[in-house]
């Protein structure tokens, strides 16, 4: 269980978040949505301990402010929006950096498996810096997966915090990455993801916390939050949530297409 209670973040004297409270359950994919500047990433970064905040964040019952970095790292992995790398490490070496015990037996294997999971095993020996932006994002996801390991162990769920995990990806890899997150949750882990794409969110998430101007506008199950009225209010434009597109409008919902085929 992840509980963020009454989180306030001030950056450069302005309040980015004002008393935000959200919870996320293990076994579920919780999406943080909202317009630009609504505080999505700030909330995620507060919950991963990257930003000073007032309030209280507990992960599996532990106040994260009281945990050592390595204790937190054993419980959760964090995928940032973008990662610059300083030295010419290979893709595999980047993934191995996330592994805690250097290179005990099987560690390299775990790293390779994580790379295979994100469809990058064939690039393992390449310099990370030579990958495209989207490939780098997937390599970082592999690093996070290798660090976290099993979605839950001895009844304690592990957590993934993903900051716009699909923003740089093509449509096939968007689906693949979201499916990885979905599988992690289905296996008992917890996933918290900052999402821009509302259609992908609707397809993969269980819960949504919808932010607007540093506050929670709505939170709950996807069907409860994703209503025309709520979304229109959050994003400040006319939005219509429908179960089917208007006749004659081309549309693309690949996940829905797959579900229909099954």
């Amino acid at each position, binding site marked *: 269980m992840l509980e963020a209670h009454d989180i306030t973040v001030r950056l450069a004297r302005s309040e980015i978040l004002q008393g935000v409270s959200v919870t996320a359950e293990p076994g579920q994919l919780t999406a943080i949505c909202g317009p630009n500047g609504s505080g999505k990433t700030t909330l995620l970064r507060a919950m991963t301990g990257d930003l000073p905040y007032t309030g209280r964040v507990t992960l599996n019952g532990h106040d994260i402010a009281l945990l050592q970095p390595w204790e937190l*790292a054993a419980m959760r992995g964090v995928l940032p929006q973008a990662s610059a790398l300083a030295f010419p490490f290979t893709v595999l070496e980047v993934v191995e950096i996330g592994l*805690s015990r250097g290179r005990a037996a099987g560690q390299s294997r775990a790293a390779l498996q994580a790379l295979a999971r994100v469809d990058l095993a064939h690039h*393992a020996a390449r310099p990370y810096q030579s990958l495209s932006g989207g490939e780098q994002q997937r390599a970082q996801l592999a690093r996070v997966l290798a660090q976290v390991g099993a979605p839950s162990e001895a009844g304690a769920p592990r957590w993934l915090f993903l900051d716009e995990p699909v923003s740089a990806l093509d449509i096939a890899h968007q689906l693949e990455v979201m499916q990885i997150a979905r599988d992690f949750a289905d296996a008992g882990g917890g996933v918290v993801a900052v999402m821009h794409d509302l259609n992908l969110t609707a397809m993969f998430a269980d819960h949504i916390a919808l932010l607007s101007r540093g506050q929670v506008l709505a939170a709950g199950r996807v069907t409860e939050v994703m209503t025309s009225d709520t979304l229109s209010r959050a994003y400040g434009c006319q939005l219509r949530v429908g179960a089917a597109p208007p006749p004659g409008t081309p549309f693309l919902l690949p996940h829905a297409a797959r579900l229909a085929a099954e």
Partner: protein
Amino acid sequence: MVALTDPAALDAPAPPDRLARARRLTLWLALLLVAVALTSLTVGATGVQLIDVARSLVSGEELTRMERVVLLDIRLPRLVMGLAVGAALAVSGAVMQGLFRNPLADPGIVGVSAGAGLGAILAIVLGSLLPPALLGIAGAHLVPLAAFLGGWISTLLLYRVATRRGQTSVATMLLAGIALAALSGAVSGVLVYLADDTQLRDLTFWGLGSLAGASWTKLAAALPILLIAMAGAMLLGRALNALALGEATAAHIGIPVQRMKRLAILCVAAATGAAVAVSGGIGFIGIVVPHLLRLASGPDHRALLPNAALLGASLLVGADMISRSVVAPAELPIGIVTAVLGAPVFLWILLRQRGAVDL
């Protein structure tokens, strides 16, 4: 799961293991170090040959007084100092580059050596003004200690100025280094006016960098600091690897980032400070050595740091042999030799980096 993963990919041959290669390299570098060290003992202005000495020792003959003085009091301390200073400079360079996340960072280039030099000069010129009791306690350690403090303050200043939210601006770092070096130079200039003749001779020696002043007394003061600083640096391997991904990610991986940064800064300051205190401003070792090693076996700091110590030691002792033999029986200041060897490498890195790095 979406079936994009090729199951055969897992069975493909594992990519080359650069860490294992780097560990093998460690062995070769250790052999190189032994070879260079032995050669260095045989090179010198006098005709004393290591092989003769070894023969005398084996056959039980007494060493001549000349042989003993040349080997034990001149060449040996100089060799030990060369090894320790070379290792310390190379390790400092590797740690700074990891800390600043940039292969161009080097204690000499960004003004840490200048700060350490200023500390040393202050100690030489103003040390006699200290109360005799305090001077008695500090003794031979005063100059290394002052150099360490100077290096430490400059590193802290530099890090404050050049790093914002875990990101280091290369331009700011280099410019701050220039400012620090200029400031140290100005204060040193003032001190030169205050200095008497003996002090002046000591000061001139800082500017050029040399191992000629090596003695067991100096070693006794500097060697413990150098060894402790390098031992501390060896603990930083995994942290520096993680820092390559940025401070936030390093913390996510479980690295106590602030603690590791403090340790890194302390090690760089201590190693550079003690090295500058005994041998003056010897440049470029810290930039050339880690760069060559990264080309040979990758950037993994767990192997890079020990390998840098070994190669740095060999390189400086090798440069010292050149400095002693090119214009024998006089000698070239070693700082000149390392600059001639190192500056082109620095420019080469700059050229390769242009475009890749946001200067």
